């Protein structure tokens, strides 16, 4: 499903070259849920951005659903993201002037899906995340946890191959954090969609079946088995 091979990423810091990721190799199987754990500056956000096609790697390959994304141009990548990738942001990033339902429908709008079909799909997902009753509300009328649920529903509406969640509980209190993780785990199981959750919180990582641990841009094998 998701295959990362010999991924290295460097950037120029003035005249000095800094290596953020060094020869990363791992694969995530279909319907698997994986936590990408690491402290601040470990390179986990860079890895997420590379996997989501928002950055081009210096070396190595990233393959999602059999397609090498590092070779795609911007438009092809947009097309690919639209159909294969879902994204959950730490700050939810809902469009404030659109209703909850319209926010969930947005990726389908970019796909050119008809209104009726969009509405059906969005409503089904909103029911699944427990916000069916709040479909016509605006994001500002919802709590942080509810907004993140909307964001999760939006990431799944196109039935993507993989969903990348960037610190999905970073802005939430502990109770809501647990609810969101429960929701993601439940959706992973019920929908069979692959999830890659980037987090710096071991408690969140521990809830997943597998953890990929990054330290100083390198992959640390066996984390979780020994912790």
């Amino acid at each position: 499903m998701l295959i990362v091979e010999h991924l290295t990423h460097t950037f120029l810091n003035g005249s000095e070259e800094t290596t953020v990721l060094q020869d990363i190799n791992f694969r995530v199987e279909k319907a698997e849920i994986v936590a990408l754990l690491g402290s601040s500056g470990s390179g986990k956000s860079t890895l997420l951005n590379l996997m989501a096609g928002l950055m081009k790697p210096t070396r190595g390959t990233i393959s999602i659903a059999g397609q090498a994304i590092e070779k795609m141009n911007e438009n092809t990548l947009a097309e690919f993201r639209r159909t294969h990738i879902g994204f959950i942001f730490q700050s939810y990033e809902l469009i404030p002037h659109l209703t909850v339902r319209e926010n969930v429908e947005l990726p389908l709008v970019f796909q050119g899906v008809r209104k009726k079909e969009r509405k059906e799909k969005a409503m089904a997902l909103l029911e699944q995340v427990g916000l069916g009753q709040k479909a016509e509300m605006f994001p500002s009328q919802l709590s942080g946890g509810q907004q993140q649920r909307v964001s999760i529903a939006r990431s799944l509406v196109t039935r993507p191959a993989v969903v990348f969640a960037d610190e999905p509980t970073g802005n939430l209190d502990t109770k809501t954090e647990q609810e969101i993780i429960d929701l993601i785990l439940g959706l992973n199981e019920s929908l069979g969609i692959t999830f890659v959750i980037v987090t710096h919180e071991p408690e969140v990582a521990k809830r997943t079946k597998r953890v990929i641990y990054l330290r100083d841009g390198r992959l640390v094998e066996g984390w979780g088995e020994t912790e």
Partner: protein
Amino acid sequence: MRWRDYFRLGWDQLKRRKVVTALCAIGIAIGSSSIIVALSFGESVTHYSQQRMSYYLKTDEISVQNLFVDNPDEPDKPVIEKITGQKMDLIRSLPHVKAVAGYANIGSFDFIVDEDKRGGVELVATELNTLTEFDNEFQQGGETDADNTIIISYGVTLDVFDEKAAKIRSMQGERGGRTANPREEQLLSYPLYQKQITLYKEQSMGDGTTKRIEFPVRVVGVLKKPEGMPDSMIRYQKQAYISPALGIKIREAMKTLSPDSQQNEFQEIDEVKVKVDQSANVPQVEKWIQSMKLNTNTNLHQEERMKNEFVIVRLVFGGIGLFVLFVASISIVVAMTMSTYQRRRQIGIMKVLGANLKQIRNMFIVESTLLGLLGGLLGILLSYWVIWGINILVYKFSEGSGGDELLFISFWVLPVGLFFAVLTGVLSGIYPAIKASRTDALTAIKRD
């Protein structure tokens, strides 16, 4: 992505930023209404002038006279191709011809009415029942078949000289030493309708005597005062119309005044006027009449000259409108570019969610197009108010003398105004749209 969704998202954005939307729309509205008003102004003035031209210059009329053809045998005596009754009948049967009437200029006559009021007329003999067909309207009375009747222009009723009042004034002047022109003071606007007036002409004879001919006639009609013409001009329009039969009678009598004069060779008709349904058909009808060996005159060349002048007027007004629109478009570019910057994060999120460059670009262009459309619709409304306001001002300043409204908006001008407004929206949206589409998604979604 469907166009309907582009429009919905664009409209949502406009609704969300009400103040900016309102300001930009007002800018475009002013620009497009300038174009609408400019074009309408140009068209209205052209239309008004054409109406006036048609009224004063009679561009839909053809004046037909005898044709003088060179005679190679006797160069001093050209051959005269005369207007005959047969030719007039033929002209009447031509397509587009509305009316035909013969005119004979009898000459200047003085008249006396109510014993001591005097005035002057230019007598024209014609079929009185054709007057209305040549755009003459009656203020009082109308056409009649009765003998010894006369129909006068409004100008004849002005400047009637009151002899009795003049004498009194003159006497007062001698006593009081007044210096004002006594004649000026005794000119009256005098009601002549249904009055019996006596037309007369005097001629000093060789033996020192004065010969006078008189024709009592009844004023059966007074023609309407010409619109938009000051009294100072109207007072010189002294035409009075009598029947051809009376015309012949007067001419016969005139022969006795100067038996030796060349004027004795009167013709029954000096010229024929032909009324055509519209000035566009005048050249064709004129051609047909010329083929009957008759001389023709029209005022069409005046209309052409005026038309050319009005093209320039329209261009000038249109140019002003375009300039205003250009200035207004700058406000859209600024507002949309600012909006691009403010919405960088949103654009970034949309890109992460799968929006491609084209979709982001189209979103912004549709938004600015909607802004243009909104401005254009407002512009139409605004231009109606402006035209309405100008008409009220014109009406007030002309003291309500005008009948129809001077300025009007033709239906074809509205799409033109709307087109320029939308075009402004589209063009102004291009730069912000390109800028928005080039927003780097990663940079945009990063939080400090």
